């Protein structure tokens, strides 16, 4: 209650302070009054003595007890005097006291020596006055009561004034402000208005500060609103980009549990109709290639580096093959972000380009580059030797010259078909240039078998080649055969030279035959 009200607290403090001052004033006043009262009493008694002295002297002079009694009775009629004694040198003429007998007094008695009325130098008696201490006390009490009354009235008045002032100039404005603050719609930018009469004082300053605060808050709120709007817009953009991206984007925890993904991710994995894979294991979503995905994930987690894996996926019917490229990027402790891209078309395009570069357009056989790439620096893939046969058509130039290039082209096409027909499906035919061909026959039994194939080949090529005009042309073939056992050092140029030398020998011995390279 006291702590809850400024008015009450202030009033009590003021009351307390005035009361304290009052008590001090009371104490001082009583102290001063007491001395003053005693001296005043003494003065009053002296004055009384002055008045009665002649009568007292006369009574003493004639020892008139009746008169003496009158005098002392008159003296104790005064409130200052407790008792009075009139005595001559020999006897007490009269004595009187206010109440009862004369009590022994602490206060010193007032003694007035009496001289003879007719001989001032001769002392004939004395008048003794004993002051009434109660009178001084009464005087003191009267003054003290007055002081206390004044202090009480003063503190009451001060307290009232303080209460009024505090209430009017502090508490009421604060209460009004508090009520208005409660009702204030700060978010709409509403302002607090000044309690009347307080525009320029501390309360007014408070109102100004509150308004400034409201304004700052409003500004901050507006900035916040703008930022949020911008953020929402950005998020929508990102959302749109993510949802429309052909690339599947996803986030997994380190252990492979799915956290977030884009629609494309599901589409690429043919999971669009299935239940959302929240928390499910990433590798499990990849079906047959789950192992490779698991390995890739583990590698990414352990090395903390980007991992790229290309995976072949068959759709449900198994009719269409697709290539998916999985990219995993660690993005902080125990989080991995992944990209899933359909690279089938890329691979197909690359394959087509490869085809273009390595195939001979006329015959569909490999060209020199294709052959070179296919062989590389490698001898046999299997446990048995690799066989290279260099084939050169005989008399092809004459066909070309006499029957034109179209006939020559037809001869070349037929030659390739016939060579392919003489070989296994896994063997390759390459046109090195002009009418020169290289046959790559891997994993061959022995030399005899190679020569057998070569003979078969020569026979096939030697068959007449029908032309569109209805007639036919005939060419021959010289074949150089070179065998390269597994484990033997192998270079493209050296291998080609070896086969070439064998082929040259075949030409020299009369064409249309095969010769084995012997070193």
């Amino acid at each position, binding site marked *: 209650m006291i702590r809850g009200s400024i008015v009450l607290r202030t009033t009590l403090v003021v009351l307390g302070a005035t009361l304290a001052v009052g008590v001090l004033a009371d104490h001082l006043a009583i102290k001063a009054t007491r001395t003053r009262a005693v001296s005043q009493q003494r003065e009053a008694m002296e004055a009384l003595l002055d008045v009665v002295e002649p009568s007292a002297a*006369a009574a003493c002079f004639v020892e008139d007890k009746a*008169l003496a009694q009158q005098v002392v009775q008159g003296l104790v009629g005064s409130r200052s005097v407790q008792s009075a004694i009139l005595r001559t040198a020999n006897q007490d003429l009269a004595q009187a006291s206010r109440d009862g007998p004369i009590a022994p007094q602490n206060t010193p008695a007032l003694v007035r020596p009496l001289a003879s*009325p007719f001989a001032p130098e001769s002392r004939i008696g004395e008048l003794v006055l004993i002051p009434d201490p109660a009178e001084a006390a009464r005087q003191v009490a009267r003054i003290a009561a007055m002081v206390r009354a004044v202090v009480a009235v003063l503190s009451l008045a001060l307290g009232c004034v303080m209460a009024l002032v505090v209430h009017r100039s502090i508490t009421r404005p604060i209460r009004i402000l508090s009520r208005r603050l409660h009702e204030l719609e700060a978010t709409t930018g509403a302002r607090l208005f000044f309690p009347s009469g307080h525009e320029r004082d501390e309360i007014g300053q408070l109102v100004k500060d509150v308004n400034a605060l409201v304004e700052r808050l409003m500004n901050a709120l507006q900035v916040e609103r703008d930022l949020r709007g911008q953020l929402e817009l950005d998020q929508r953009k990102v959302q749109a980009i993510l949802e429309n991206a052909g690339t599947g984007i996803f986030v997994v925890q380190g252990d492979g549990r799915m956290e977030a993904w884009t629609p494309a991710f599901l589409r690429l994995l043919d999971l669009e109709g299935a239940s959302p894979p929240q928390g499910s294991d990433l590798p499990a979503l990849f079906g047959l290639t789950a192992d490779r995905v698991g390995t890739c994930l583990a590698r990414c987690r352990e090395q903390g580096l980007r991992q790229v894996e290309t995976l072949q996926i068959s759709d449900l019917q198994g009719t269409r093959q697709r290539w998916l490229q999985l990219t995993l990027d660690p993005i902080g402790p125990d989080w991995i972000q992944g990209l899933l891209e359909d690279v089938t078309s890329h691979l197909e395009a690359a394959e087509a380009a490869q085809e273009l570069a390595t195939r001979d357009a006329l015959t569909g056989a490999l060209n020199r580059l294709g052959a070179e790439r296919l062989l590389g620096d490698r001898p046999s893939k299997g446990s048995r030797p690799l066989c290279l046969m260099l084939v050169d058509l005989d008399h092809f130039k004459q066909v070309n010259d006499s029957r034109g290039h179209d006939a020559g082209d037809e001869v070349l096409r037929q030659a390739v078909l016939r060579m392919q027909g003489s070989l296994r499906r896994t063997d390759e035919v390459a046109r090195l240039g002009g009418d020169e061909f290289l046959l790559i026959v891997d994993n061959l039994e022995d030399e005899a078998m190679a020569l057998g194939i070569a003979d078969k080949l020569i026979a096939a090529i030697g068959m007449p080649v029908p032309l569109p005009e209805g007639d036919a042309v005939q060419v021959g073939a010289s074949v150089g055969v070179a065998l390269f056992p597994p484990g033997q050092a192998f270079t493209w140029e050296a291998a080609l030279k070896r086969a070439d030398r064998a082929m040259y020998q075949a030409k020299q011995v009369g064409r249309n035959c095969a010769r084995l390279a012997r070193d």
Partner: protein
Amino acid sequence: MRLRECVLPLLLLAMAPLLRAQESIAVIVHPESGISQLSREEVTNLYLGRQKRLPSGLTALPVEQTNPRPVWARFYRLLVDKDLAEINAYWARLFFSGQAQPPHRAQSAQEVMETVAANRGAIGFVERSKVNRRVKVVLVLGGAP
């Protein structure tokens, strides 16, 4: 010279009443009062009520002469150096108790003389020139020593 010798006695004669006013006053008692002399203090005590008996034991009867008034006043002036108003005020204080009586008042020196001559305890005062054989002077106030 002759004239001068005549003027002085005439002047003195003319001033006689004035000189007589300055005449000393004699306090007198009855010849058989048993007192031959009184001090000024004793006279004061007797006249102002402090002593009610003569030193010889007789009840005192103080008599004061109020006429002529200058003699009355002169007596108190010489005795206690007070004027008559003061003496009256003094008696006024004592009057109501009735215990002390102011002196009996006589209208003339003749009456004083007769009262004193007639009472053994009486005491009075007259101008010294008025004293005769019927009274006894116990104190002389004022005048030549």
